[in-house]
């Protein structure tokens, strides 16, 4: 075994990511190197990416990449220090532990273990996993075939497609030397592994006179219909050719699910108790002088009553990374603000609950039955939006934001799409949009991939299309 540990760890002839057993063994080796008493903690992530990118109808790069990150904390005396490395052999681990100890000696904070440590609550193993063999098992050849199938129709029409396919897998564990394997403090992370896939495509005409896009992300590659995405991107490109200028102003908009998700993204950041109860963001209500705290809009109707936004961590169709003790959360219950996120300390002291509540990392939004076609049919004058891009929040009290439409914007007149329209800049608040809803459609998964290989929070979303009134577009742009 020691010969195996001597060598630079090879991730090749075993799996592409670290298994639970491997992680446990690494944890033990790290703990064994510690000098002196005091807790040792590790956080170990490993990832593998299979990637394929194309542009101008030809694959430009296909990759297989993998790496890992090991963070080590050591308590020495009253200090805590940490280092980070990506090497797992004995010599590297030992040196990293020494580095963490040195950093601990320089630590400016006085921290000590508490006087007593009552036994931790029983560890509740999550029942779901978000692992799909379809994602993990997809080979470079598979990705190549998929890409070629997506490209072919666009190329045949003389259009230029660009796109990206990514299948990835990752693992994470956070362990402490104070606890045997199988015993977890609420802030440890028992070993978990996951997969995630994304597929997106942009089709443009050679002169840049039109552009269409479609994309989807899911932990399970088999749930992504690449062909359908390619067809949609192509259709949008064709339909968006030679857009005409349109006066900015307030319009009824029909937002496709992706566009809705792009706007709701602005709300996601604001959903925490900490800000609201400090008087920041959109959710404070008023200061209660008697109780000396901020009352918030929790319990008040803040958006349309047909809309609920929630998630159930054990919902396999959604695909949230499972954590122990996670409960289903409803953030908006028929329009009423029902939940804001908070950390464990807040949960214990302010709510007498035993776990943190996460924010809107992955969510499911209710909708209705109205199809997008029906929405178009019932619109006298309005705009159909594919998605938004380059969004920035301008004001955190109202969540007023600005951004651009992209990859397809069409004018609707008297129940029909009449022309493709040049992209517009909007200045609008998603809260306003969700309060001015006319019709809602059937919720579907949207494109919401994780940005970094080290991110451990997958962010799926299931979102309906909707029609909303008086959406504010403030200027026109030439970019297509």
């Amino acid at each position, binding site marked *: 075994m020691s010969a195996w540990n001597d060598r630079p760890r090879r991730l090749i002839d075993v799996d592409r990511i670290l298994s639970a057993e491997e992680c446990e063994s690494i944890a033990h080796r790290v703990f064994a190197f510690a*000098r*002196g*008493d*005091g807790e040792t903690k590790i956080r170990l992530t490993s990832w593998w990416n299979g990637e394929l990118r194309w542009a101008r109808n030809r694959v430009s790069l296909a990759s297989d990449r993998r790496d890992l990150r090991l963070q080590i904390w050591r308590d*020495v*005396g*009253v*200090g805590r220090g940490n280092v980070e490395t990506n090497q797992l052999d004995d010599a590297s681990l030992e040196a990293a532990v020494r580095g963490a*100890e040195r950093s601990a*000696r*320089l630590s*400016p*904070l*006085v*921290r*000590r*273990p*508490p*006087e*007593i*440590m*009552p036994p*931790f*609550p029983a560890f509740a193993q999550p029942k779901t996993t978000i692992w799909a063999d379809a994602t993990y098992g997809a080979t470079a050849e598979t990705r190549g075939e998929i890409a070629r199938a997506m490209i072919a129709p666009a190329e045949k029409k003389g259009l230029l497609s660009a796109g990206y396919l990514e299948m990835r897998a990752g693992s994470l564990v956070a362990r402490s030397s104070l606890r045997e394997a199988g015993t977890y*403090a*609420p*802030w440890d992370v028992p070993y978990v592994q996951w997969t995630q896939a994304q597929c997106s495509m942009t089709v443009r005409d050679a002169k840049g006179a039109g552009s269409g896009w479609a994309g989807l992300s899911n932990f399970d590659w088999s749930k992504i219909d690449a062909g359908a995405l390619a067809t949609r991107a192509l259709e949008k490109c064709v339909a968006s050719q030679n857009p005409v200028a349109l006066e900015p102003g307030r319009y009824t908009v029909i937002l496709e699910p992706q566009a809705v998700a792009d706007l709701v993204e602005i709300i996601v950041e604001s959903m925490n108790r900490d800000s609201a109860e400090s008087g920041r963001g959109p959710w404070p209500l008023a200061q209660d002088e008697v*109780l000396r*705290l901020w*009352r*918030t809009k*929790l*319990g008040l109707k803040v958006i349309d009553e047909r809309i609920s936004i929630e998630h159930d961590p054990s919902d396999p169709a959604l695909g949230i990374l499972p954590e122990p003790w996670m409960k289903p959360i409803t953030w908006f*219950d028929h329009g*009423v*603000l*029902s*939940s804001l996120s908070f*950390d*464990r*300390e*807040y*949960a*214990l*002291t*302010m*709510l*007498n*609950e*035993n776990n*943190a509540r996460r924010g809107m990392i992955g969510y499911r939004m209710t909708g209705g039955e109205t199809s997008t076609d029906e929405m178009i049919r019932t619109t006298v004058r309005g705009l159909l939006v594919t998605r938004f891009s380059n969004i920035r929040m301008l004001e955190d009290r109202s969540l007023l934001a600005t951004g651009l439409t992209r990859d397809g914007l069409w004018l609707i007149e008297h129940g029909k799409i009449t022309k493709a329209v040049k992209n517009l800049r909007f200045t609008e608040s998603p809260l306003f949009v969700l309060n001015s809803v006319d019709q809602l459609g059937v919720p579907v998964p949207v494109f919401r991939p994780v940005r970094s290989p080290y991110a451990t929070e997958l962010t799926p979303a299931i979102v309906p299309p909707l029609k909303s009134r008086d959406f504010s577009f403030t200027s026109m742009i030439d970019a297509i």
Partner: protein
Amino acid sequence: MTATVLRATVSSRWHLAAMLALAVVAVAAPAQTSFQWPDTTAPVSSYTQVDECLAAIARVRAAKERQDAADWTDTLPFDRQAMLRPALPAVTEIATKCAARFTEPTTNLADFSRLLPLYLAASRDSDAARLVARRIAAIPATNALARASVADSAFDAYIHARPARFGAAEDILVHRAHSSANRLERMTIYNTLMRATRDAGDSVRARRAARWLIAVADSLTREERESETFQRMEDDAGGRYVVYEAVSVLAGSGAILDSLRKSTAALVALERATWTNATGERPEALPIPLGKQAPPITADFWFPGDAARTPRPTRGHVSLVLFIDAAECMLNGTTEDAARGCAAPLVNARRLVERSPEVELTIVAQTHGFFMYLQPMSPADEAELIRQWLDTYHIPRMAIAVTSTPNWRLPAPDSRRVNKPTANDINYAFDKTWKTGNQSLFLFDQQGILVNAWHYQEMADYIDVLLHRTTEAN
């Protein structure tokens, strides 16, 4: 005296140093191998900016404080002389090296507020005096306000230097007194000097400062007395309280202990008379519940179970009552930033009890619906854990009274818990005249009369007098 719970914030070193100063006393840490302390040989001689020198000094001070915190300093009493103890050799060394490149009278006066503390840390007091003189001289005499401001920062530097420079601080006050400055400001400065010198045991200077303070207070106009500044003096205790303390200082702590030796009633009468003397109000207006009868401590859970066979505080005993809120003492949710925020009052209580076996100690605690990272938690279970936690301090003959905190919840989905005061909170507020909270400590005589609730450091002396008085006066 509120609990100072250390949090892992990246804050200015100055704030950190102040916080660290409070968290010194600790219980025995588990046996550890020793480890080397950080290398204090950063090249301070080549630092060109005064602020860098101060940063290095603060770093070395903080390192020493951490070292103290790590050692088993359980037996150290509150150090009255802390302010006057000579500077750490490491600090003087760093300060001297770093300050070597700065010489009077060639330094830049713009660096005054930083140079002065540096000179004092390097024991270059004459240079410090020269700098102050230069700085004041650079301001035209007609600009009294600016001069007063410089004098104030010099005064601050002298008081906060280690060892504190009380003599120089006094001299600056003379300067200050000649300017027609804000009387309330002067009163505040005299108060700072009086408290610092009193706490350091320099009673001569403390009395002098007290005299100046009283003189200024006597000259205040009605407007000044009713101003917000006056009301908010000394952490909202108020200007009247400050004057009362000055009168007490003038009388000397000996006088208070002498009166207590005679009888509790004599002490009460003296303190009330002092109040009248200081403020002109009725003796009963003394804002301290001195002389009041100890309310019986109530609890839902007693440890040991029979501790309240007779009501506590028990008649016939000198009694200490210490309020400890376990939830405030610990950071909750994780052990990530666990720190012994309440070690000081608990160790202090233990020391008092060990010293005088006749003293009875009751710790008053309350439940919050969780304990550290555990929830759900019944009041009985939580009380038991509080007991286990307090047991680690090994306080002999400790009795614990745990009340399940009455509370209500904001309506769902907010659901925040709002605590209501317990019976002990209410009773020990003595008809809302006293602010009781975590770490509040009360001392009652054998008849259950309150004799001290605010002079934490003097509890040992008071107890000695009460016990001695008991033996003699029965």
